[in-house]
Protein backbone atom coordinates (compact mmCIF):
# COMPACT_ATOMS: atom_id res chain seq x y z
CA UNK A 1 0.00 0.00 0.00
CA UNK A 2 1.19 3.48 -0.85
CA UNK A 3 0.17 6.83 0.52
CA UNK A 4 0.40 9.63 -2.02
CA UNK A 5 0.22 13.33 -1.25
CA UNK A 6 -0.79 15.43 -4.24
CA UNK A 7 -0.47 19.23 -4.38
CA UNK A 8 -2.32 21.13 -7.11
CA UNK A 9 -1.57 24.82 -7.66
CA UNK A 10 -2.05 27.41 -10.35
CA UNK A 11 0.78 27.67 -12.86
CA UNK A 12 3.26 30.49 -12.19
CA UNK A 13 1.88 32.46 -15.13
CA UNK A 14 -1.71 32.37 -13.80
CA UNK A 15 -3.02 35.00 -11.43
CA UNK A 16 -4.21 33.44 -8.17
CA UNK A 17 -6.82 35.88 -6.87
CA UNK A 18 -7.54 33.86 -3.72
CA UNK A 19 -3.85 33.76 -2.83
CA UNK A 20 -3.68 37.51 -3.44
CA UNK A 21 -6.65 38.11 -1.14
CA UNK A 22 -5.04 36.03 1.61
CA UNK A 23 -1.78 37.91 1.15
CA UNK A 24 -3.71 41.19 1.55
CA UNK A 25 -5.15 39.93 4.85
CA UNK A 26 -1.74 38.80 6.07
CA UNK A 27 -0.36 42.27 5.37
CA UNK A 28 -3.24 43.81 7.31
CA UNK A 29 -2.16 41.55 10.20
CA UNK A 30 1.17 43.33 10.02
CA UNK A 31 3.31 40.62 8.44
CA UNK A 32 4.80 42.67 5.65
CA UNK A 33 7.70 40.24 5.35
CA UNK A 34 5.37 37.78 3.61
CA UNK A 35 5.97 38.41 -0.06
CA UNK A 36 3.67 36.02 -1.85
CA UNK A 37 1.00 33.43 -1.16
CA UNK A 38 -0.16 30.87 -3.69
CA UNK A 39 -3.22 28.85 -2.76
CA UNK A 40 -3.78 25.30 -3.92
CA UNK A 41 -5.42 21.97 -3.23
CA UNK A 42 -4.09 19.03 -1.30
CA UNK A 43 -5.09 15.38 -1.68
CA UNK A 44 -4.16 12.30 0.30
CA UNK A 45 -4.58 9.18 -1.78
CA UNK A 46 -4.14 5.55 -0.82
CA UNK A 47 -3.14 3.29 -3.67
CA UNK A 48 -2.80 -0.46 -3.78
CA UNK A 49 -0.07 -1.21 -6.25
CA UNK A 50 2.92 -3.53 -6.31
CA UNK A 51 5.59 -0.97 -7.06
CA UNK A 52 6.22 2.74 -7.05
CA UNK A 53 6.38 2.92 -10.83
CA UNK A 54 2.77 1.76 -11.21
CA UNK A 55 1.66 4.18 -8.49
CA UNK A 56 3.24 7.03 -10.46
CA UNK A 57 1.38 5.96 -13.58
CA UNK A 58 -1.96 5.87 -11.79
CA UNK A 59 -1.44 9.18 -9.98
CA UNK A 60 -0.28 11.02 -13.08
CA UNK A 61 -3.26 9.82 -15.09
CA UNK A 62 -5.69 10.81 -12.33
CA UNK A 63 -4.03 14.20 -11.94
CA UNK A 64 -3.99 14.94 -15.67
CA UNK A 65 -7.59 13.93 -16.16
CA UNK A 66 -9.28 15.01 -12.96
CA UNK A 67 -7.40 16.48 -10.01
CA UNK A 68 -5.73 19.26 -11.98
CA UNK A 69 -6.86 21.23 -15.00
CA UNK A 70 -3.53 21.26 -16.80
CA UNK A 71 -4.58 24.27 -18.86
CA UNK A 72 -4.09 26.47 -15.80
CA UNK A 73 -2.84 24.25 -12.99
CA UNK A 74 0.22 22.20 -12.22
CA UNK A 75 0.77 19.44 -9.67
CA UNK A 76 3.43 17.59 -7.77
CA UNK A 77 3.25 14.55 -5.54
CA UNK A 78 5.08 12.56 -2.91
CA UNK A 79 4.85 8.79 -2.65
CA UNK A 80 5.33 6.98 0.62
CA UNK A 81 5.11 3.24 1.27
CA UNK A 82 2.84 2.39 4.19
CA UNK A 83 1.85 -0.81 5.99
CA UNK A 84 -1.38 -2.47 4.97
CA UNK A 85 -4.13 -1.52 7.39
CA UNK A 86 -6.51 -4.38 8.10
Amino acid at each position, binding site marked *: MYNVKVYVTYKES*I*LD*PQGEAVRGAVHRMGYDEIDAIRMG*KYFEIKVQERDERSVEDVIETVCDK*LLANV*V*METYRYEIEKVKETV
Partner: protein
Amino acid sequence: MRFAVIQFPGSNCDVDLLHAIKDGTGEEAEYVPHTADSLDGFDGVLLPGGFSYGDYLRSGAISRFSNVMSEVKRFAEDGKPVFGTCNGFQILVEAGLLPGALQRNKQLHFICKPTELKVANNTTRFTSEYAKDEQLTIPIAHGEGNYYCDDETLKELETNNQIVFTYASENPNGSVADIAGIINKKGNVLGMMPHPERAVEDLLGSSDGLRFFQSMVKNFAKETADV
Protein backbone atom coordinates in the same frame (compact mmCIF):
# COMPACT_ATOMS: atom_id res chain seq x y z
CA MET B 1 -36.27 20.57 -33.70
CA ARG B 2 -36.04 18.51 -30.55
CA PHE B 3 -33.72 19.66 -27.78
CA ALA B 4 -32.30 17.73 -24.84
CA VAL B 5 -31.77 19.79 -21.69
CA ILE B 6 -29.29 17.82 -19.59
CA GLN B 7 -29.91 17.84 -15.85
CA PHE B 8 -26.90 17.32 -13.61
CA PRO B 9 -27.22 17.23 -9.83
CA GLY B 10 -27.01 20.93 -9.01
CA SER B 11 -28.10 22.32 -12.38
CA ASN B 12 -30.42 25.27 -11.82
CA CYS B 13 -30.96 26.90 -15.22
CA ASP B 14 -32.54 23.82 -16.79
CA VAL B 15 -36.06 25.24 -16.42
CA ASP B 16 -35.02 28.51 -18.08
CA LEU B 17 -33.57 26.64 -21.05
CA LEU B 18 -36.68 24.51 -21.46
CA HIS B 19 -38.78 27.66 -21.27
CA ALA B 20 -36.61 29.46 -23.87
CA ILE B 21 -37.04 26.61 -26.33
CA LYS B 22 -40.68 25.75 -25.75
CA ASP B 23 -42.16 29.18 -25.18
CA GLY B 24 -39.50 31.22 -26.96
CA THR B 25 -39.03 29.29 -30.19
CA GLY B 26 -42.06 27.01 -30.06
CA GLU B 27 -39.88 23.92 -30.56
CA GLU B 28 -39.72 20.74 -28.50
CA ALA B 29 -37.49 20.26 -25.46
CA GLU B 30 -37.15 17.57 -22.86
CA TYR B 31 -35.13 17.08 -19.70
CA VAL B 32 -32.52 14.33 -19.92
CA PRO B 33 -30.96 13.10 -16.65
CA HIS B 34 -27.18 12.87 -16.20
CA THR B 35 -27.58 9.12 -15.91
CA ALA B 36 -29.00 8.71 -19.44
CA ASP B 37 -27.30 6.32 -21.88
CA SER B 38 -28.65 7.73 -25.09
CA LEU B 39 -29.45 10.98 -26.89
CA ASP B 40 -31.24 9.24 -29.72
CA GLY B 41 -34.01 11.29 -31.26
CA PHE B 42 -32.56 14.66 -30.23
CA ASP B 43 -31.35 17.30 -32.66
CA GLY B 44 -29.63 19.58 -30.18
CA VAL B 45 -28.14 19.32 -26.70
CA LEU B 46 -28.23 22.11 -24.12
CA LEU B 47 -26.06 22.09 -20.99
CA PRO B 48 -27.56 24.37 -18.34
CA GLY B 49 -26.03 26.69 -15.81
CA GLY B 50 -25.90 25.96 -12.12
CA PHE B 51 -23.50 24.37 -9.69
CA SER B 52 -23.31 20.78 -10.86
CA TYR B 53 -21.86 18.51 -8.18
CA GLY B 54 -21.54 21.56 -5.95
CA ASP B 55 -18.67 22.83 -8.13
CA TYR B 56 -16.48 20.46 -6.10
CA LEU B 57 -12.85 20.30 -7.20
CA ARG B 58 -13.44 22.79 -10.06
CA SER B 59 -16.62 23.91 -11.82
CA GLY B 60 -17.62 21.22 -14.28
CA ALA B 61 -14.78 18.86 -13.34
CA ILE B 62 -17.00 16.13 -11.88
CA SER B 63 -19.93 16.48 -14.32
CA ARG B 64 -17.55 15.81 -17.14
CA PHE B 65 -17.38 12.20 -15.94
CA SER B 66 -21.13 11.71 -15.52
CA ASN B 67 -22.74 8.98 -17.56
CA VAL B 68 -24.45 11.12 -20.18
CA MET B 69 -21.26 13.00 -21.08
CA SER B 70 -19.84 10.23 -23.27
CA GLU B 71 -23.05 10.51 -25.30
CA VAL B 72 -22.76 14.29 -25.42
CA LYS B 73 -19.21 13.86 -26.74
CA ARG B 74 -20.39 11.47 -29.40
CA PHE B 75 -23.23 13.82 -30.31
CA ALA B 76 -20.68 16.62 -30.74
CA GLU B 77 -18.34 14.43 -32.77
CA ASP B 78 -21.25 13.67 -35.10
CA GLY B 79 -21.39 17.39 -35.83
CA LYS B 80 -24.70 18.00 -34.07
CA PRO B 81 -25.25 21.24 -32.15
CA VAL B 82 -24.23 21.38 -28.49
CA PHE B 83 -24.64 24.53 -26.41
CA GLY B 84 -23.42 25.15 -22.88
CA THR B 85 -24.18 28.26 -20.87
CA CYS B 86 -22.39 29.22 -17.65
CA ASN B 87 -21.80 25.93 -15.79
CA GLY B 88 -22.56 24.23 -19.11
CA PHE B 89 -19.64 26.15 -20.65
CA GLN B 90 -17.43 25.10 -17.72
CA ILE B 91 -18.40 21.47 -18.33
CA LEU B 92 -17.60 21.76 -22.06
CA VAL B 93 -14.08 23.07 -21.39
CA GLU B 94 -13.45 20.47 -18.70
CA ALA B 95 -14.62 17.78 -21.13
CA GLY B 96 -12.18 19.06 -23.74
CA LEU B 97 -14.95 19.88 -26.21
CA LEU B 98 -13.82 23.50 -26.12
CA PRO B 99 -10.30 24.85 -25.54
CA GLY B 100 -9.14 26.82 -22.49
CA ALA B 101 -10.37 26.94 -18.92
CA LEU B 102 -12.58 29.04 -16.65
CA GLN B 103 -10.90 30.56 -13.66
CA ARG B 104 -12.20 32.32 -10.59
CA ASN B 105 -13.35 35.88 -11.42
CA LYS B 106 -10.52 38.37 -11.18
CA GLN B 107 -12.06 40.20 -8.20
CA LEU B 108 -13.32 36.96 -6.55
CA HIS B 109 -16.95 38.09 -6.41
CA PHE B 110 -19.91 36.22 -7.75
CA ILE B 111 -21.36 38.64 -10.31
CA CYS B 112 -25.02 38.67 -11.27
CA LYS B 113 -26.10 41.49 -13.58
CA PRO B 114 -26.98 42.35 -17.18
CA THR B 115 -23.92 42.79 -19.42
CA GLU B 116 -23.37 44.26 -22.84
CA LEU B 117 -22.13 41.66 -25.30
CA LYS B 118 -20.79 42.10 -28.79
CA VAL B 119 -21.49 39.53 -31.48
CA ALA B 120 -17.96 38.98 -32.76
CA ASN B 121 -18.97 36.25 -35.20
CA ASN B 122 -22.44 36.09 -36.72
CA THR B 123 -21.61 33.35 -39.21
CA THR B 124 -22.22 30.46 -36.80
CA ARG B 125 -25.28 28.26 -36.56
CA PHE B 126 -25.94 29.85 -33.16
CA THR B 127 -25.65 33.51 -34.12
CA SER B 128 -26.81 33.88 -37.73
CA GLU B 129 -29.87 35.88 -36.66
CA TYR B 130 -27.64 38.62 -35.25
CA ALA B 131 -25.78 41.33 -37.11
CA LYS B 132 -22.00 41.40 -36.96
CA ASP B 133 -20.81 43.55 -34.02
CA GLU B 134 -24.39 43.91 -32.80
CA GLN B 135 -24.60 44.75 -29.09
CA LEU B 136 -26.81 42.60 -26.91
CA THR B 137 -27.93 42.88 -23.30
CA ILE B 138 -27.63 39.45 -21.71
CA PRO B 139 -27.29 38.68 -17.99
CA ILE B 140 -24.33 36.95 -16.40
CA ALA B 141 -24.35 35.09 -13.07
CA HIS B 142 -21.07 33.44 -12.20
CA GLY B 143 -18.14 33.24 -9.82
CA GLU B 144 -15.81 31.41 -12.17
CA GLY B 145 -16.23 32.91 -15.61
CA ASN B 146 -12.77 34.30 -16.14
CA TYR B 147 -11.86 32.63 -19.43
CA TYR B 148 -8.22 31.68 -19.72
CA CYS B 149 -6.17 30.16 -22.51
CA ASP B 150 -2.50 30.42 -23.46
CA ASP B 151 -1.28 32.78 -26.20
CA GLU B 152 -1.04 30.01 -28.76
CA THR B 153 -4.67 28.95 -28.20
CA LEU B 154 -5.82 32.57 -28.30
CA LYS B 155 -4.10 33.07 -31.63
CA GLU B 156 -5.79 29.96 -32.93
CA LEU B 157 -9.21 31.14 -31.68
CA GLU B 158 -8.69 34.47 -33.42
CA THR B 159 -7.41 32.97 -36.67
CA ASN B 160 -10.32 30.54 -36.91
CA ASN B 161 -12.89 33.15 -35.93
CA GLN B 162 -13.86 31.04 -32.89
CA ILE B 163 -14.50 33.97 -30.56
CA VAL B 164 -18.24 34.45 -30.91
CA PHE B 165 -19.16 36.80 -28.04
CA THR B 166 -17.04 39.40 -26.27
CA TYR B 167 -17.88 41.77 -23.42
CA ALA B 168 -18.62 45.08 -25.12
CA SER B 169 -18.27 47.76 -22.46
CA GLU B 170 -16.57 46.44 -19.34
CA ASN B 171 -14.95 43.08 -18.84
CA PRO B 172 -16.68 41.79 -15.68
CA ASN B 173 -14.40 38.90 -14.78
CA GLY B 174 -10.93 39.43 -16.25
CA SER B 175 -11.30 37.03 -19.16
CA VAL B 176 -8.59 36.88 -21.80
CA ALA B 177 -9.34 39.17 -24.79
CA ASP B 178 -12.75 40.05 -23.23
CA ILE B 179 -14.01 36.62 -24.26
CA ALA B 180 -17.58 35.78 -23.23
CA GLY B 181 -18.25 32.85 -25.56
CA ILE B 182 -16.38 30.63 -28.01
CA ILE B 183 -17.12 27.94 -30.55
CA ASN B 184 -15.15 24.85 -31.56
CA LYS B 185 -13.33 24.67 -34.88
CA LYS B 186 -16.02 22.54 -36.44
CA GLY B 187 -18.66 25.11 -35.52
CA ASN B 188 -21.13 22.87 -33.70
CA VAL B 189 -20.15 23.29 -30.03
CA LEU B 190 -20.60 26.71 -28.41
CA GLY B 191 -20.02 27.72 -24.82
CA MET B 192 -20.61 31.09 -23.19
CA MET B 193 -20.75 32.47 -19.64
CA PRO B 194 -23.77 34.79 -20.19
CA HIS B 195 -27.30 33.40 -20.11
CA PRO B 196 -29.26 33.98 -23.35
CA GLU B 197 -32.05 31.80 -21.93
CA ARG B 198 -32.65 34.43 -19.26
CA ALA B 199 -33.21 37.09 -21.91
CA VAL B 200 -35.98 35.75 -24.12
CA GLU B 201 -38.75 38.22 -23.33
CA ASP B 202 -38.92 41.95 -22.73
CA LEU B 203 -40.70 41.39 -19.45
CA LEU B 204 -37.44 39.90 -18.13
CA GLY B 205 -35.45 42.96 -19.13
CA SER B 206 -34.24 41.83 -22.54
CA SER B 207 -35.25 39.59 -25.40
CA ASP B 208 -31.83 39.71 -27.05
CA GLY B 209 -31.18 36.07 -26.21
CA LEU B 210 -34.14 34.76 -28.17
CA ARG B 211 -32.46 35.05 -31.56
CA PHE B 212 -29.68 32.78 -30.30
CA PHE B 213 -32.09 29.87 -30.05
CA GLN B 214 -33.93 30.96 -33.19
CA SER B 215 -30.62 30.79 -35.06
CA MET B 216 -30.15 27.19 -33.89
CA VAL B 217 -33.65 26.29 -35.03
CA LYS B 218 -33.42 28.04 -38.41
CA ASN B 219 -30.06 26.52 -39.25
CA PHE B 220 -31.24 23.08 -38.28
CA ALA B 221 -34.29 23.48 -40.54
CA LYS B 222 -32.03 24.62 -43.38
CA GLU B 223 -29.72 21.65 -42.96
CA THR B 224 -32.50 19.09 -42.84
CA ALA B 225 -34.15 20.66 -45.90
CA ASP B 226 -30.88 20.33 -47.81
CA VAL B 227 -30.61 16.58 -47.19
